């Protein structure tokens, strides 16, 4: 019996710990409104999901501290494991919970593709905070579905333009075989060929691969100007590291999924230096709200970084709360409110939804790794000519 008892204590302790993170004390006398958050909280891309969850939570906490807020907000965070079937489960759970007025959902595109029908069916207004596949907003006519971040189309168009302008001629592409990596590959290839860039080889890798020496040796043989990588930070770190092992001198270019401080933490020496990447939205640090977000995030003492898409989750949650403040916790009204959002100020730049709920302010920011930080290209020593990107 004592063993069972101690197990129960552990369980209770774990529960309490989790609760103290997730629940906030609602102010007295205000009506409580529940808002959902869905993202990958466990598994391989959980760093992104946790960063988003924390940011959404921060938005809720900050509003709850605001005495002028009409409602007390409660976050309902759910884990989709980046799996469509689990996503459908939790989306159903959220959408059928009548107390939930709206939600900020999904980092993984395949999951979002599977759940949009459910949101539509149960009239739950949602704002996508991270998934980048165009079809999530453009593949349907659902009024409930919105997205604050840009699609991978915008990002890759800018990326292709920019890199060609830097004078590069030939590319080798490595992408992971998830929807994210494959989608980026498709669009980048399209835009790059249109702009006259040459692709010497394309390599698909699995998202948990450790060793890339075979692919990279082949790339060494192809001798491109740039190695383009479409995937997330952990793979980016391994690939950059192994490029150096094999003595590949090409420039390293990536996508939004690797714009994380973990890229620097994972790379020794100055290997990260000069890597170029692109991210939708305005650089948070340069907007007044962005600086506020960052300092509040630090103050809140989360265990994890907010990562590339945290600011979007924060912006989306704020927008959702604004909607509820304005029209009340009514799903239909919130959906209607969101349909008319134009030039809404946020920490990622202004938000304007088109008739598919897609944020049309397709602001893409270019970043370059400089001295262990991601620096907005225009502010960097690379743009000013003090440093040079790698040219063979």
């Amino acid at each position, binding site marked *: 019996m004592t063993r069972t008892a101690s197990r129960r204590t552990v369980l209770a302790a774990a529960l309490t710990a989790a609760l103290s993170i997730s629940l906030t004390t609602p102010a007295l006398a205000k009506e409580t409104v529940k808002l959902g958050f869905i993202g990958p909280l466990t598994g*391989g891309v959980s760093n992104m999901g946790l960063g988003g969850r924390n940011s959404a939570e921060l938005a809720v906490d900050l509003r709850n501290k605001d005495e002028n807020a009409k409602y007390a907000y409660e976050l309902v965070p759910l884990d989709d494991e980046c799996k469509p079937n689990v996503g459908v489960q939790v989306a159903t759970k959220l959408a059928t919970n009548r107390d939930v007025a709206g939600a900020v959902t999904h980092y993984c595109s395949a999951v979002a593709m599977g759940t949009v029908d459910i949101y539509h069916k149960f009239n739950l207004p949602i704002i996508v905070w991270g998934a980048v596949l165009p079809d999530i907003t453009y593949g349907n006519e659902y009024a409930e579905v919105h997205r604050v971040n840009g699609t991978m189309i915008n990002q890759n168009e800018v990326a292709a333009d920019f890199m060609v302008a830097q004078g590069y001629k030939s590319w080798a592409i490595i992408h992971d075989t998830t929807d994210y990596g494959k989608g980026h590959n498709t669009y980048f290839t399209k835009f790059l060929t249109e702009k006259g860039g040459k692709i010497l080889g394309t390599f698909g890798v699995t998202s948990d691969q450790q060793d890339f020496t075979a692919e990279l040796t082949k790339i*060494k043989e192809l001798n491109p100007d740039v190695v383009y990588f479409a995937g997330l930070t952990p793979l980016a770190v391994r690939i950059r590291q192994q490029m150096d092992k094999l003595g590949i001198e090409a420039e390293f270019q990536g996508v939004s999924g690797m714009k994380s401080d973990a890229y620097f933490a994972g*790379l020794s020496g100055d290997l990260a230096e000069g890597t170029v990447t692109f991210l939708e939205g305005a650089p948070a640090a340069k907007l007044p709200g962005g600086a506020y977000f960052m300092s509040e995030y630090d103050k809140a003492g989360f265990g994890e970084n907010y990562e590339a898409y945290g600011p979007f989750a924060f912006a989306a949650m704020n927008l959702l709360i604004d909607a509820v403040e304005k029209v009340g916790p009514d799903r239909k009204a919130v959906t209607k409110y969101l349909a008319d959002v134009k030039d809404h100020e946020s920490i990622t730049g202004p938000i304007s939804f088109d008739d598919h709920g897609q944020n049309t302010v397709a602001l893409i920011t270019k970043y370059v790794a400089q001295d262990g930080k991601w620096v907005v290209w225009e502010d960097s020593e690379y743009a000013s000519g003090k440093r040079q990107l790698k040219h063979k």
Partner: protein
Amino acid sequence: MDIGLLGQYLANGVMLGTMYALVAVGFTLFFGVLDVIKFSHGDVLMIGAFTGFTTYLGIVAIGIENPWVALVAVLVVSIATTAALGALIARYLVLPLKSAPPLNILLITLMLGTALREGVRLFYPDGSNPKAFPALLPTASLELGSFSLRADSVILVSAGIAVIIGLNLLINRTRLGLAIRAVAQDEETAKIMGINYTMIVLVTFAIGSGAAAFAGIMNGLYYNEVNFGMGLLLGLIGFSAAIIGGLGNIYGAILGGFLFAGLQTVGAVALPFASAYKDVFAFGVVIALMAWKPTGLIAERSSDRV
């Protein structure tokens, strides 16, 4: 393709093969003494790598700069800790389930693997992101045309092979090895001969896990990066390698490890279709091999007494 590149592929393959073989040897050892598959092996390797990484941070924090001192400390602490972990797993999760269906041990160690992985992800500071493992070995490199061979790679491969040879000698040439083989051969007889059965099992698990820690450190030193999920695939591949080679046989593990590395390299480079199919190719060949040689390339001596 020029000779230099061919050499490069070969060098990559040897490196990869050595790592796989080290993991596979662990599986073979456990299977040898207990007829069990300890599936958490890959995650134990990850724990080894993270222990090594933490030790390094500690060493730097107390102001020791010499990379060789750091390397020795990293190896000693990591191998010792992981060996202890291996023995604990054997004592509390594997031995108690000896009389249960063998699949239970497989499941319990798989679940333990998940728990270890999730534990590191959640409780190691910023554990869900990759960590930069220090380059503690000299990085001078030899360039021959398009072939580049780095000193650290050479050292790592040699060390890895030395460990495998050492393990082989330990099993075949020492009293301890004799006891391990006796237990592997026949538990009852070994007990009658006065061998401390439990002790031998624990020691074997400690040795195998220590080897995994070594492979983890090797992995870290080679890729200069460690992450909480690194053990998952390595474990799966190490297990497959041990099986294709033939369980309960160190040479089988080595053969399987190098074969798997070869398949992946060939799959990524030489196949007429997209390189993304390389795992499909490698695992397809595994299935075909098993159909051809159902008990592995170097078959286990049949213990099926009729």
